[in-house]
């Protein structure tokens, strides 16, 4: 396993608007990167380029020293030892649940007892041991998603790509699955990239959070860091709750105390910097009065 490097990667589908552009990102060996961003910002496209389904129209992708793809050549997906949960699940309708889950093992030549044991284990991790013989068409949406999950985690891939893998699961299962990811990550040491819209998921699991918008990378940082010091309005808006105020505050300070903020709030001019106010930083001092609030605002 090695560092995954995306170097000024771009992808244009020829629709006039590049889906991904100038995207540079390092995911450290064994890192767990959460990729956040609004719908349609290019997250799936990034994953698909890492997996090798799309070739970047520009830039290059490396795993350690190994070139995975650039605009001219590309290592085929089957040689990358990666695994992915597709946003659309991509289950094979002609195979049973067990067949779907076991297929990556079969391809790797695992058979017999080892095969059955691994498939069984993967299925019970996603709570589908009873459904091994069903066809995907006869499953509920969340069950399908779990089959896709089990298939993704059944082998020991170098890189695991998860495209909103928990979107259709209920809270309990979601937590369980998060636990599973954590364990899997620790056990296997795989590099994981996890696309989600749920930032609490992201915060809970990731060693790093990357935020993108309209095909561009806005910020990468550890969760606490990105929460505390989001760069720009979009990142601030996506990460955690809070209100963003546009206030005429000058200077390089990244943290404002209440009195500074109050001054700025009372100024008539509302041009200036974006100020993010987190709810936990708002502490009501007295009995509902407005005067004594303590606010720590973070500059975006």
């Amino acid at each position, binding site marked *: 396993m090695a560092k995954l490097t995306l170097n000024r990667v771009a992808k244009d589908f020829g629709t006039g608007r590049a889906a991904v552009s100038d995207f540079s990102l390092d995911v450290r060996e064994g890192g767990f990167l959460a990729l956040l961003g609004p719908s349609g910002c290019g997250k799936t496209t990034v994953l698909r380029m890492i997996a090798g*389904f799309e070739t970047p129209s520009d830039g290059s992708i490396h795993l350690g020293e190994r070139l995975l793809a650039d605009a001219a050549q590309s290592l085929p997906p*089957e040689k990358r030892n990666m695994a992915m949960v*597709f946003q659309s699940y991509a*289950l*094979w*309708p*002609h195979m049973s649940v067990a067949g779907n889950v076991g*297929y990556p093992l079969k391809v790797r030549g695992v058979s017999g007892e080892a095969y059955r044991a691994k498939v069984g284990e993967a299925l019970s991790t996603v709570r589908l041991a009873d459904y091994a013989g069903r066809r995907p*068409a*006869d499953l509920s949406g969340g069950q399908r998603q779990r089959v896709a999950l089990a298939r993704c985690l059944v082998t020991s891939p170098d890189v695991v790509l998860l495209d909103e893998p928990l979107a259709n699961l209920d809270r309990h299962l979601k937590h369980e699955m998060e636990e599973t990811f954590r364990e899997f990550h620790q056990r296997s040491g795989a590099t994981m990239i996890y696309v989600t819209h749920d930032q609490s998921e992201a915060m809970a699991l990731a060693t790093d959070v990357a935020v993108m918008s309209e095909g561009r990378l806005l910020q990468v940082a550890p969760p606490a860091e990105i929460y505390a010091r989001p760069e720009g309005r979009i990142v601030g808006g996506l990460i955690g709750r809070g209100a963003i105020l546009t206030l005429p505050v000058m200077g390089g300070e990244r943290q404002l105390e209440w009195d500074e903020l109050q001054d700025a709030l009372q100024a008539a001019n509302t041009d200036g910097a974006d100020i993010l106010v987190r709810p936990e930083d708002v502490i009501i001092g007295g009995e509902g009065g407005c005067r004594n609030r303590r606010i720590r605002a973070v500059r975006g």
Partner: protein
Amino acid sequence: MPGYVRTGNSQPPWLFPFVVITVLILSVLPLARLAMVGIAAFANGGIIDVLSAPSLWSATYYTIVTSVVGTMISLVIGCLFAFLLTLTDIRGKGLLSFFFVLPMMIPPQVTALAWVQMSGPSSPLLKALAIAPPLGSPQPLYSVGGIALLYGVQHAPLVYLALRAGLMTLPRDGVEAARLSGASSFRVFSDIILPLSLPGIIAGAAISFVSCTGNFGIPAILGIPASIFTLPTLVFTKFSAFTSRTFGDVAVLSAIIAMISVAGLMIQDRALRGRDYRVIGLSGASAAVELGAWRFLFTPILWAILSFMLAAPFFALVAGALVPAYGVPLTFKTMSLHAFEEILFRQAVTRTAFVNSISLAGATAVCLLVVTVLAAYMLTRRKDAASRIIASLIEIPYSLPGIVMAVAFILLFAAPIPFLHISLYGTIWIILIAYFSWFFAVSLKPVVSAFHQLDPALEEAARLSGAGFFRRLSDIIVPLIAPAAGASVILVFLIACNELTISALLWSAGTQTLGVAIYNLDDSGSSDLASALSVLVVLMVVIMMLLLELLAKHLPKGVVPWRN
């Protein structure tokens, strides 16, 4: 209560009766009429004689063997072309697929003769290579293998068209998931693509198989010299020595052919049972494979196969049309356009035949499509015994030799229809009805397999939008199965265009078809005229395909099978 439907039934209540009545008219009535006459012919006994004749069982054996092997060959060729031309980035796709459907246009007899000559002592090709066998050496094509090979060549386009439609809806992400699982291209193919395209493959195999069991032209030319009789050639010889028992014999032979094809259908049914091919949440992104260096292997293979399948027989035809008599070597001195002149400007029958065949083939293809879409809808939604029986009944006519169906229709319609007092016999309508009956199976197969692959949610979404049956049929279902519908129309049109055996018995003054005209010219010794007419038919089809190409922009995606 008005508006309600019985449970478990998403179809309009009239649909089932409609299909049943259609099948009754097109399949059951003619077959029953033939069976009645057959039974009457045996009224004084004799059935034992027929059944105990060794010739019957050897013909049954040869029919099965040649059909099975022929089907396998057509599967190999048809699948090769379908997979490479639909899924890969091979060069010249358009041209290859354009040409690949043409061999269906060349009458089987012509193909068979062209191949015999190609591999015989007088073969210009073998002579040029100096490996021509000496005069009198045995002809390798006069054998079970030869018949099967020609069956395969003749029917490969059927497989291609039936399969292509399914491949076009192969989901991209399924293939990608397999590749990411580490599967090599070959494994992706065998584990994912092949099983997912199984409905199309099986449909292709089934049409190919029933076409083989009913084929007359090829075993007549390649089989009889080697004393290999198949059931259709046997049927034909029964007609040639007519006795009071002939109808009985023919009915028995037909029943055996029907049983073979129903057995084939049951195997098909088994193969498909319990499989689910619906692609969930189909988004429309279809799979594509890059060939890479393999291209340099496959491109020549495809062109080589194509040249054997199409170029050789076609040039044999052209040569036959350009020389004044059979056996005269084609040189600049002997070459003449006289045959074309004669056909185009002097033979009155040419125009009649073109008009008749094109309108018959067009009407058959288009009208049948309407019936087929309805029937396929019903057959895939109902999974009970009744629908399986109906499916078999649709299948039987095409599996019988055309001459048998023609006789059945004469028996049915020679006298004016009771109550209505209309006589169809001797008009073009009887040919049309017989075509409906005969080509029903051809038209149905690709459409049914497309229905098998359709995610029902797509129709459900339309229903909830308020679209009634016909509305969603025309807006959602037909566009979604457009490739299959296109395949169905083109298959039927091409085969019907120079169909011979049915119209041979049903035509009368003014209703000659192209097949009849070509056959009659050939049979009268005017093989140059026959070849010239055949060449013209092929050219006409090419022109029509080009016209379709111009229209393709306005048609749903995938309808025109040689476009990607």
